């Protein structure tokens, strides 16, 4: 049994299990959790293609997460993460600004242990995802902006700790995504976008990424507080993205306070939605 579990975890991490699940029959009945969060915080941008100086400023973010238990195997969760962010930053001397934005999507599967320790659920698995975005510097001439495009396979972990305060059940939720392998768009060290797109000169502009050249980590720590039939979620998002490819250094260190709501649904056999809370 233990051997089977280990095999299943590896299968989830390397993508085989999702395929087998996707090709199999869809369960008729399952649990589903939807979390929508809005964040406000600060971000620190560095992109040496645009400037050697760090830019700091406010950032707004949006996160939507879904998690569904498969009825056939309640230990397996299917997850999706949709995120968007906008930032407006300035250099230390406040003589120039950068506007940044990106959208990202990740999806994958987790294997979940419930009550690993008392009140603690743990899930680990893998995600496949990507993002596109931009960073625009309002002062530069022929290197005014940097386009962002990434694809990645990430290891993912989540933990939920449930506890009671005055008969009310609260939950601390933690999740982390660590990209392990991917591809990233990047111009060369001194290559202009004019050369790249107008002249069509491709020069290793899609780069393989791994923790050695693009170590990134996204962590979310939240507290779920049930309020009547809904759940309020508040927390802290730490999104550290980095890359050092084609001689260009990039980082985006974002830290945000997030607030939103969680809805837990159960899809019944007759396919009617019922609030489970």
């Amino acid at each position: 049994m233990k051997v089977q579990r280990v095999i299943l975890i590896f299968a989830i991490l390397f993508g085989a299990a999702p395929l087998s699940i996707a090709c199999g029959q869809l369960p008729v009945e399952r649990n589903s959790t939807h979390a929508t969060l809005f964040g406000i915080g600060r971000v620190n941008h560095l992109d040496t293609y645009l400037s050697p100086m760090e830019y700091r400023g406010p950032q707004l973010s949006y996160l939507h997460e879904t998690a569904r238990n498969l009825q056939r195997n309640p230990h397996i969760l299917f997850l999706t993460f949709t995120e968007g962010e906008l930032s407006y930053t300035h250099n230390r001397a406040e003589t120039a600004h950068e506007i940044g934005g990106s959208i990202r999507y990740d999806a994958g599967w987790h294997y979940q242990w419930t009550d690993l320790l008392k009140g603690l659920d743990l899930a680990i698995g893998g995600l496949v995802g990507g993002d596109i975005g931009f960073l625009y510097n309002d002062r530069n001439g022929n290197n005014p902006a940097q386009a962002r495009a990434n694809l990645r396979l990430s290891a993912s972990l989540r933990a939920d700790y449930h506890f009671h305060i005055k008969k009310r059940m609260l939950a601390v939720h933690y999740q982390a995504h660590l990209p392990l392998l991917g591809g990233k768009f990047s111009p060369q060290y001194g290559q202009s976008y004019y050369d790249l797109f107008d002249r069509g000169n491709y020069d290793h502009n899609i780069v393989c990424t791994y923790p050695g050249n693009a170590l990134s980590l996204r962590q979310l720590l939240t507290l779920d507080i049930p309020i009547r039939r809904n759940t309020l979620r508040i927390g802290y998002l730490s999104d550290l993205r980095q890359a050092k490819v084609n001689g260009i250094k990039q980082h985006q260190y974002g830290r945000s306070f997030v607030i939103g709501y969680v809805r837990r649904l159960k899809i019944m056999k007759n396919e009617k939605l019922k609030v489970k809370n």
Partner: protein
Amino acid sequence: MKRSRLLILYFSFLIFNLSLLTGCVREDQPDNTPINNFEALWKIIDEHYCFLDYKAEAIGLDWDEVHTTYRQRISNDMTNAQLQEVLTDMLAELRDGHVNLYTAADVSRYWSWYEDYPKNLDIELRDQYLGTDYKIAAGIKYRIFDDNIGYLLYEDFSVGVGEGNLDDVMYYLRTCNGLIIDVRGNSGGMLTYAERLSQRLTNKRILVGYSSYKTGKGHSDFSQPKAEYLNPSTGVRWQKPVVILTNRECYSATNIFIRNAHACEGVTLLGDQSGGGSGLPFSSELPNGWAVRFSASPSYDKDMNQIEFGIEPDIYCALDATDALNGYDTLIETARALLH
């Protein structure tokens, strides 16, 4: 059972947090002092400027020696104006019109590439040739002289011109025996417009030059030069002789236009050597927020020669003061004589 669960928990968190112990991707963020700003500027040029090797050979530039020389003039108690003066002098060693330092008070520049030479251009005189009934198509002014020579003036490649404009211009001038394209005083702008105009001068795809860019911090770290071809326009193309009037103010995108046009059949360059400026400029900045512009990726001619210091004309021709007093532009008159 409990022990194995604890192990799972322990290793799960360990894997994720091990990543935090590894290095961050950062760049030095020096304090805003005159010395640090000097060092930052010297380093930006040292790592990103694309002509250090070429200028070491062509004009004896030694960027390390420049550091030694100018570092002596920097101290942390100097004012911003004093700092800018020293940094301007240091950047002038590059002899590059694409290198600027922008502060709130001033723009540091090197304009000797045209200020030290005769202009060979009298705007009022040129306006007399244009008259008052000339036509304007976007950034182009044009007319037909009495001797049936077409005259096309493009003063600034920052001002756009569309394919439709060029179709109409070429169609209007189609009956002329020859065409004068006057780009004197045009100090550049958008490469797209420069290329668009030069595409009207060839009927076949021709090699016009090469370009490369820096791939690393070393002075010799360049990509393999890529050939640049000029494709003929699909619109109305010019089929007769062309004389292009040039002077020292022809810079940057105009320099590239001259390079491209010179590779076309039936095109003669007349006037003075162009100003040059073959490096596509990039921007960066110093810790105090001052912006700096510098040449980042070089272009060459079709024989892989540098054109940073300009392109020589086929026929040198200067504006004669006596001609000018008599209402004649020596270059335009010489071009007309050539086209007859």
